[in-house]
């Protein structure tokens, strides 16, 4: 088991390196750098000025070198402006050319500086991640129990009316992407045109102080899309377990239907949904970006949109590292959890 986790961790780090390199490559293409120079410096810069602006800041070094500097395995870039001032990757704030460390990359804990928010990348990511964490916590709290209940109720008597109606509900919910359900929910429950006005159409206030009124719609919108898929998986798993021999034996022994479901079937039926719930995280990230944009909730997804829209290279890298790690760690947890929950599988 230890070896298995170690190997998975190795693959994980390799994946993260590859992915960050791809992000690095795409954000450091020359047209992107030119856009960055023009938005940060001056919109009317000539081509030579753009080149000089980029050169002084070390953006024109070869790609692997820049990547090494960002990672912290190569010494940070040091350059000189036209007026003779020494600039460099590691030189900022109170640090001068003499006192600055040679290496300043992710490995040294320096995630760089966001050109959009004018703040350290790590601080921004942590702050925004906390906000999204709050959103995700409530999404999970709503989505997982609801999906499991729907799935178990539908799967315990396959083909019954209850099964059919609940399955229809879950198909409809998987067919409704967040930007559709969000718009419909806002139209019905938050707009003055319909007049219900039960909830707020934006969740900006929920960043400070989340209430049912300003936070329910974004949470429900994300939960709705994920719920259908988990419920369908739970239903399939439950329906399969209910046809197993030991369930029939229990029924023939005279155990009540209720006890068969709760005590015998449920445990085995919940193994598959566990993996599905864990693997749902990458998709939820998608939903988070859409919903945070739709409801103007300034969390992690919103930051991603801002960073990508303005080609804020270091922030974008920080965001992608975090999201890639979230995806990979949930995959690891789902694998390990699957092995623990299902005694028939042994990892050697």
């Amino acid at each position, binding site marked *: 088991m230890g070896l298995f986790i170690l190997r998975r961790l190795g*693959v994980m780090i390799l994946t993260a390196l590859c*992915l960050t390199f791809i992000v690095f490559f795409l954000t450091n293409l020359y047209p992107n750098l030119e856009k960055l120079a023009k938005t940060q410096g001056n919109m009317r810069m000539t081509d030579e000025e753009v080149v000089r602006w980029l050169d002084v800041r070390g953006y024109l070094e070869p790609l692997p070198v820049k990547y090494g500097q960002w990672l912290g395995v190569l010494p940070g870039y040091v350059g000189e402006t036209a007026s003779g001032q020494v600039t460099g990757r590691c030189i900022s704030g109170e640090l001068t050319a003499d006192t600055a460390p040679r290496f300043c990359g992710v490995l040294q804990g320096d995630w760089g500086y966001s050109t959009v928010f004018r703040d350290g990348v790590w601080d921004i990511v942590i702050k925004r991640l906390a906000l999204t964490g709050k959103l995700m916590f409530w999404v999970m709290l709503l989505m997982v129990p609801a999906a499991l209940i729907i799935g178990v109720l539908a799967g315990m008597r396959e083909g019954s009316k209850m099964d059919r*109606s609940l399955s229809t509900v879950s*198909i409809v919910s998987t067919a409704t992407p967040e930007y559709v359900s969000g*718009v*419909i929910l806002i139209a019905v429950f938050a*707009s003055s045109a319909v007049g219900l006005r039960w909830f707020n159409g934006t969740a900006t206030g929920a960043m400070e102080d989340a209430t049912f009124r300003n936070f329910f719609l974004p949470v429900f919108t994300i939960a709705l899309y994920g719920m259908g898929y988990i419920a369908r998986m739970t239903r399939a798993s439950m329906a399969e377990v209910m046809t197993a021999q030991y369930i029939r034996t229990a029924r023939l022994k005279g155990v009540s239907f209720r006890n068969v479901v709760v005590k015998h079937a449920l445990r085995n039926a919940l193994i598959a949904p566990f993996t599905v719930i864990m693997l749902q995280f990458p998709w939820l990230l998608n939903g988070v970006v859409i919903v945070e944009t739709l409801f103007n909730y300034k969390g992690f997804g919103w930051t*991603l949109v801002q960073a990508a829209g303005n080609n804020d290279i270091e922030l974008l890298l920080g965001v992608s590292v975090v999201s890639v790690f979230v995806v990979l760690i949930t995959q690891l947890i789902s694998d390990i959890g699957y092995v623990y929950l299902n005694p028939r599988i042994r990892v050697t």
Partner: protein
Amino acid sequence: MEPLTWTGALGGVLNPALALACAAFAVTAVAQIVLSLVVTQPMPQGNELVAPPSLADHAGTAARWSFGAIVLIVLAYAVGGIVLPDPQAKGIVGLVSTRLLPVWIALTVLFAVSITFKRRLGLYGKLFDSTIGMIGFALVMFWVFAGVFGAMDLIVTHDPLAQISGMKNEPPGTPVTQDGVYPYYLLGGDNLARDVFTRMIVGAWEVIKIAPFATLFAFMVGITLGLPAAYYGGRLDVFLSFLANLILAFPVILLFYLLVTPEIVATGIPVYMAAVLFIFPIVFLVILFNSRFFTQPGKRNLYLGVTLVVGLWLYLGIAWNADPLGIIAFPPNLLVVFVSVVFVNSPTVFRIVRGIAMDIKTRDYVAAAQTRGEGPWYIMLWEILPNARGPLIVDFCLRIGYTTILLGTLGFFGLGLSPESPDWGSTINEGRKLLSIYLHPALPPAFALLSLVLGLNLLADGLREESLKD
């Protein structure tokens, strides 16, 4: 001219009837589910145990009847709307139904023909045995026909980009202030005074012309790589699986934001990606024909010749925009959307194909083919692939739906497509900004996208059910 009402002259009779039927259906449906928890005890009747009809069964019958009533009333709206002569009497529903007349005719013909010959049509015919499948198929074909006829200028009422002064954010059914065009904005005007109904129909064409082909390309890529990965295993499998997992670990939106920008289009990366991805269909077809017909050189050369000539011509036109005849051209911003959607979808298809092929390659008929001395590609493409078709067809339908959602996401974030584009994602994004005051610009495209994806999901469900039966 007076603004139109929703239901026109029919409303007086049909609206209360519809409300009544809906209420009855809701009550009986809920009652049926709740009552089905109470199981009736079976009674001995002669030599058999028979469960007497329970309350749930009665509720079920009532629900079925009230649902039938709803369907009938909706049909009456549609047919009545077409039959009535005067626009005021037709109402908005009637006028929309009249505009959609070609779609209704095409759907009726399609269903009549398919149901008549369903026994001779294989899996497609069996679809018409499942209610769910039929509903799904009807929804999908509705939008396909609407898109195609819309592109042929049969349904749309206005120019999707034309702005008519005074029509900004006007509610549905407002008479148009300008002469010489269709006299109403059926579903109102949007924030730039364009017709919402027209944009919704033209948006369907945007989806219909991209989503199925992008999915098909993703399948070609996934199959061409997934089959050898499963069949040979070993290093190849490890490498390709790592690559697939790499792409899958990438958050889709981040990838879109990085790939679908004008700056990236300027660097030419989408063209190179297209060059790599679009070669797979040609490779796939060449191997497919070669592995089967290499013993009959005449036939093989004919098939390969046709594939290569047509394939390379399309390839040059689509990927490199260098069609020697100058017929095929692919706008660069559409290409980047197409490429990124194929790129995001193919690893998932790869994993599905690999999983199924791993299972099938242990079967006896594969061993028999190996003993016969068939080549590996023949076994993969002519023994394993046809036996994997059931799950693949089902996944194909689901994946078109998912691609539709992805296209909507791209539009929603304003990526790739031009800002004026009438596709559903962009229209929803535009409409949401004024959602608290005006509902009509955002809701029609939202419901259109919902119903198309729902239709594809139901179709996949019906196909799965029917393909499991044999």
